[in-house]
Every structure is written in structure tokens, then in C-alpha cells.
């Protein structure tokens, strides 16, 4: 079963992901010394730092880093959109920050060690680390975090994928309108089997023939959205290469949509199943609502699982590829010839991983869509 394989892969990548994050967490001193990749390039003879190299790639950024020429970092500037209570709405390009070295209009990208005072509801003040975020120097001289809706690297990549998806499917839709009842051609014939796969292998078996058409547009959208973004993430050059589906905010929104649709479409028997599960002894429901509690936790656990699975799988894939790439530089620091030798092995592994990731890109899109479909199926299932 593909689901079984998908789950096993999920666990595998989960494990690898935590392993890698633990390894990087065990070197906190190094991390603090070279907090941003841009800084790191300005110092000569500085040892290569794989964790900042890897996390610089997989995490978001205010500009889209392309490559370095000598010590100069070349990147695509992206719009920064921040709203602060003192200065109102500010929109400017991220190039104004000069890769995090300069402040503009009182905003700058926080360095390591910079903290913002937060006052919680009980009136206790706490310091929170804001490294890498845009912070604002208030008139009082204190730092504050403005509302930040900047178009970051991931969001720019997201916009590109949105345009690509819209272009692909609107042109395919046009092709269907132009040639009704004819064999598909070109892009149409490439996408049609996948559309049919989602319909016949995902939607119909898990939701049922009666209700599947209500959920099919969402399932198709989410499938292609995840798949295309996964694939774009494997392309190492912009507009690909960003870690869109490996961003927890993105997977959170996707999982939220699944949760929203499940909740809205849930039938009476679905809710009854949660709050008053039939076939369960009464003492599990009264006086302590043990069973309903478990069921309600389940309602929220399902989308959270969806969110974490996709995020972890895709991020893990990127980390592994970057890890193999880092090996070349780590060994090259010991001896350039050793680095050259390792590069052969590393590149071979990266190629292997990329093929594996091509598979994972599809499997994760499939798993997310399939589980969403199963949740929808549960929501509309009629119990007798």
C-alpha cells in the first residue's frame, strides 16, 4: 500500500529531521558567532558553518539570495511591507537593508542577541529573541516587532507557483472547452491522468460516489498546489528552490482549509459520532466525557498531523540535500583535494536524493490529499 509506504517515509524523514536539528542544536556557540550568512561572508578565513548554510537555505528570507561573487552577496530584492503603530504602513525594497547591515526608516533585521520586551497578560515582562526578524526602533529607543507582511522569499516563490498553477490549469480548461469530446493534447494529456487519479483513486474511494463531487475541486487544488510547489522546491535556481511546502505556515494554512471544510461539511451523524459516540459504554461519556474528549482532540490532531507531516517531509528532503552539499565544503576546508573527492560521492548522493525527492513530492501531495479525502469521507459518512 502506498499509504503504508508514505507513512514509513514520513517516520523516516521525521527521524532524520530531528537528528539533523539535534546535531545543529548541539553547536549553539558556533551559531551565535555567525548568525547570518551575509555576515559570515564578510570575514576572511572563517570556517564553513553547515548549519547556517543549510538553515539559510530552508528558512525564509527578506531577499532571494542567488550567489556570491567574492564577498559580495547577489540577491533579488523583495518588497518589505511592515505596519507599525508609530510609523504606519511602510513599503520598501529589502535591498535598503543591504543584506541586513543597514537600518532603513528605523527598521532593521535583528541580529543575534537582540531581544524584544514582551508583556504578557499577567503584566510580566519577558525577553524574546527576534533574530532574523524585522524590528523597529521606537522613539523611546526600545525595539518592537511591527506587523510584518513582507513578500519574503517563500512568498515570492508562492506567488510564482500560484501564477504557474493558474496559467497551467486555465489553459488546460480552455483546451477542454475548445475540443470537447476529443482526445487530450499536450499539457492536457499530461494532466488528465493525474486529475483522473485524484478523482478515481482518492476522492471516490474515500468519500463515496454520492458526495465526492462536493470535495473534488478542493482535493484537486490542494494536490496540484502541493505537488507543483514540492517540485519547484527541487529546482535549485529561482524561481524554484524556495522551501514553500516545507514552511510550517504554508502547511498550516493548507491543513486549516481541510479542517474548515471538514467542520463545515460535517453532517449531524459526524458530530454525533464525536460527542456521543454510538456503541461506546455510557461510563466513558458520563460523568467524565472521556470519549468525547478523545474525539475532540482527534478533530484537531488530524489537521495538525497533516501540517507537520508535509512540513517535516519536505524540509527533511531539503536538509539532506544541503547536508550532502555541505560535506563537500567541510572536507574542502581540511584539504581542497579531499573536498574534490568527496564532491563526487556527494553529488551522486544528491542526484539519488533528488530522484527520491521527486517521488516524495508526489507521495506527500498524494498523502495530504488522500488523508483530507478520508476526513471529508468521515464528515459526510452516513451511519445506520
Amino acid at each position, binding site marked *: 500500500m502506498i499509504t503504508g509506504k508514505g507513512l514509513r517515509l514520513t517516520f523516516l524523514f521525521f527521524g532524520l529531521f530531528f537528528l539533523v*536539528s539535534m546535531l545543529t*542544536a548541539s553547536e549553539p556557540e558556533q551559531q551565535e558567532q555567525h548568525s547570518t550568512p551575509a555576515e559570515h561572508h564578510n570575514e576572511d578565513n572563517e570556517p564553513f558553518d553547515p548549519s547556517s548554510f543549510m*538553515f539559510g537555505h*530552508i*528558512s*525564509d528570507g527578506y531577499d532571494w539570495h542567488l550567489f556570491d561573487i567574492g564577498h559580495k552577496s547577489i540577491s533579488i530584492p523583495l518588497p518589505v*511591507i511592515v505596519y507599525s503603530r508609530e510609523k504606519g504602513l511602510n513599503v520598501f525594497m529589502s535591498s535598503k537593508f543591504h543584506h541586513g547591515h543597514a537600518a532603513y526608516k528605523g527598521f532593521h533585521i535583528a541580529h543575534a542577541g537582540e531581544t524584544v520586551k514582551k508583556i504578557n497578560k499577567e503584566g510580566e515582562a519577558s525577553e524574546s529573541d527576534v*533574530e*532574523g526578524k524585522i524590528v523597529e526602533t521606537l522613539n523611546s529607543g526600545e525595539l518592537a516587532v511591527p*506587523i*510584518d*507582511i*513582507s*513578500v*519574503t522569499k*517563500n*512568498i515570492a516563490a*508562492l*506567488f510564482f507557483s*500560484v501564477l504557474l*498553477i*493558474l496559467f497551467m*490549469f*486555465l489553459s*488546460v*480548461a480552455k483546451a*477542454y*472547452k475548445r475540443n*470537447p*469530446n*476529443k482526445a487530450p493534447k499536450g499539457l492536457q494529456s499530461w494532466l*488528465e491522468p493525474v*486529475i*483522473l487519479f485524484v*478523482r478515481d483513486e482518492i476522492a471516490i474511494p474515500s468519500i463515496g460516489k454520492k458526495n465526492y*463531487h462536493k470535495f*473534488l*475541486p*478542493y482535493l*484537486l*487544488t490542494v494536490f496540484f*498546489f502541493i505537488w507543483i510547489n514540492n517540485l519547484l522546491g527541487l529546482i535549485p535556481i529561482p524561481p524554484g528552490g524556495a522551501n514553500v511546502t516545507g*514552511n*510550517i*505556515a*504554508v502547511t*498550516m*494554512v*493548507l491543513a486549516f*482549509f481541510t479542517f474548515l471544510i471538514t467542520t463545515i461539511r460535517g453532517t449531524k451523524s459526524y458530530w454525533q459520532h464525536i460527542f456521543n459516540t454510538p456503541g461506546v459504554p455510557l461510563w466513558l461519556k458520563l460523568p467524565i466525557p472521556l470519549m468525547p474528549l478523545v474525539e475532540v482532540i482527534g478533530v484537531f490532531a488530524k489537521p495538525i498531523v497533516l501540517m507537520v507531516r508535509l512540513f517535516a517531509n519536505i*524540509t527533511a528532503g531539503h536538509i539532506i540535500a544541503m547536508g550532502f552539499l555541505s560535506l563537500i565544503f567541510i572536507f574542502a576546508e581540511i584539504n581542497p583535494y579531499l573536498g574534490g573527492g568527496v564532491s563526487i560521492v556527494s553529488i551522486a548522493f544528491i542526484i539519488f536524493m533528488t530522484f527520491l525527492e521527486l517521488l516524495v513530492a508526489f507521495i506527500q501531495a498524494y498523502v495530504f490529499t488522500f488523508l483530507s479525502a478520508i476526513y471529508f469521507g468521515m464528515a459526510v459518512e452516513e451511519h445506520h
Partner: protein
Amino acid sequence: MDLLLPHTGTIFWMLIAFSIVFFILKKFAWKPILNAIKAREDSIEEALRSADRAKEDMQQLQADNEKIIAAAKQERDAIIKEARALKDTIIDDAKTKARSEADKEIEKAREAIKSEKTAAIKEVKEEVAKLSVIIAEKILKEKLAHGEEHKELIDKYLRDIKLN
């Protein structure tokens, strides 16, 4: 870790972007695409069904044809049989007719031959009689010159004639 904390800006843009994609695709892509696929599947199914029906019709037609051909063959055989019988009777009739005709002709010829023969014999007899008379006259003329002998001869003839 920063990686595990969802960023508000990303959530904001993702909500907008995904909602737009979902809305536009649902309205302008999935609806026409799924409808077109459904329509095509229906038309293919319809075509297959009508092909099946045509096949059945063909088989029916073929069975009918075979029946007709079998009937025609049977009829042909009957006609041939009848014709053969007719031919035989006609030939037989003709044969018997011809035989009787021939017999009649032969009979007629025989009769004719018989009468001709009788006539011929009669003629020959008359001729012989005439010649006999002539011969007799000549003989008589010669013999009568010898008296006695004549008398004897005449007697002898007379006797012979009487005997006849």
C-alpha cells in the same frame, strides 16, 4: 526554533494566495475540466454501448441471412430435384413415343415392302409366263416339224397342265 514557528506574514499571504487559487480554479478550471471529462466519458460509454448494439444487430442480421440462405438452398435443391424428375419423364416419354413411331414406320415399310414384293413377284410371274409362251411358241414351231414327237409332247404338256 524559528523554523517551527509559523510566521504571521506567511500565513496572511498563503491564506490570500490559496483562497484565490482555489476560487479561480474551482470556477474556471475544475468545473469545465471535470464537466468535459465527464461528458467525454459519457460519450465514450454511449459509443461503446451503441457499438455493442450494432454488433448485436449485425449478429441478428447475419443469423437472418443464414436462415434465408438455408431456405434458398433448400428451395433450389427442391427445384433441381423437380426439374430432374421432369427431365426424366420427358425423356422417357420421348423415348416411348419415338419407339412407337419408329415401330409404326417400320411396320409401314414392311407392309410396303411386302406389297411391293407381291407386285414384283406378280410382274415377274407375268413376265415369265410371257417368256414361257414365247419360248414355247418357238419350241413348238421347231418341234411341230417332226410330227410324232409333237403329238407326244403335246400330250405330255397337257398332262402336266392337268396335274397342275
